[in-house]
């Protein structure tokens, strides 16, 4: 027998389900196999990077694996992925961003915009801005500066340059 209480519980849980999955789906990496014997490289040790974002199993199916050196029009490369490890995350065309709605939500929730903190990926609605020759990503009131950390592109939270 359905009661109001059960119905409410049920609906409430339904609402929570996608969020719960998106949170649980985040799995970071603790490190990779070393790729050389001559150097016990620190490059293999995981950096302390916030690994937010990413979870969506079914939202956006727009997969374009065939990236063209001649700058193909479709830059939206969304491969279903549950693992949040070092990966090119932003293929945006100038005005930034690019990821799944669910992932964006997760990012918005989990990204701490502490100055100096570093992330592999950006939250939603960012735009690329150049100030005095320096490239930034402005995401709302938070400014990120892209940089190479080893071979990975990471984003560091900086004070607004203007």
């Amino acid at each position, binding site marked *: 027998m359905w009661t109001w209480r*059960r119905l409410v519980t*049920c609906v409430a*849980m339904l609402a929570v*389900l996608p969020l*719960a*999955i998106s*949170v*649980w789906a*985040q799995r*970071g*990496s*603790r*490190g*990779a*196999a*070393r*790729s*050389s*014997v*001559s*150097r*016990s490289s*620190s*490059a*293999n*040790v*995981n*950096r*302390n990077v916030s690994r937010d974002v990413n979870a969506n199993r079914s939202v956006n199916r727009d997969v374009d694996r065939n*990236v063209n050196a001649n700058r193909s029009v479709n*830059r939206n*490369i969304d*491969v279903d992925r549950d*693992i949040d*490890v*070092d*990966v*090119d995350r*932003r*293929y945006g065309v100038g005005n930034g961003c690019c990821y799944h709605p669910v992932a964006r939500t997760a990012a918005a929730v989990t990204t701490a915009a502490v100055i100096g903190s*570093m992330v592999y990926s950006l939250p939603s609605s960012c735009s*690329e801005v150049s100030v*005095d020759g*320096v*490239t930034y990503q402005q995401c709302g009131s938070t400014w990120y*500066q*892209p*940089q*190479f*950390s*080893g*071979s*990975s*592109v*990471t984003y*560091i*939270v*900086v*004070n607004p*340059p203007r």
Partner: protein
Amino acid sequence: MKLQAVALVALLVVACNGHGSPQENETAPAPSQAAGTAGVAEPSVPAAPASAASGAAERDASAIAALDRMGTYLRGLTTFQIRGETSRDEVLDDGQSVEFGAVVDMIVQRPNRIRAEVTSDRKQRLYFGDGKTFSVWARRMNYYATIPAPPTLRELADTLADKYDLELPLVDLFYWGERKSLDEIRGASDIGPSQIDGVTCEHYAFRQEGADWQVWIQQGDYPLPRKLVIRTTTDDARPQYTATLAWNLAPSYDDTAFTFVPPKDAKRITLVEAPAPAPATTPH
């Protein structure tokens, strides 16, 4: 992850059917985040000599000699091109390994020129060293960084690793043949003949601190490494890296291949000096 989703769905069913209160089920498996997030545990792993377990490790002199010969041969190559197919395990927080593949295309002209392209499902990178500068370009994101280059590729490899935490692809090629890399080997065995891509090789296995590794060296007058397997022994999951190499010892290329000319809409960003993360930067 799948299990957790199933558990959640089960939970829903329970809630909607009204058997029992959902309360008691809320102890469903928590995300296994806590265990692994400490990360960076690797350096603190005690260094146990490989020989500790089974008495003295075999150190077959002929295997060491073969490695030395390969290294000497490699150092004598002025130009070469390699196409390598690699796979690398990545260990997730909970200890599960997943494998990622990549293709490396590399042209080297000693002493100081290199062009390498690494393409994986996840990343695309081009590296250019023209003797004066070194550049890395993230093609899809169209970011690049350029730094001054030291005079040799060997020094470049050192600088990149030590100062910038960046490992050149197939970097062993620039180190093999040095005394130091031989001295580090604790165990060495000749496993026997083996075919790699139709080429007869001799298969060797080595042990050193932090890694058990194997190399397949082409038999005959061209002792080239045709395959390399490295198993990291400092992580319980023992992740593995594999590279299979196809060689071209007479590549044709243009001198401009080694010089990076940024596309006009490419953005220059910094290559951060290790240890990252750097402190906050304030442009003004």
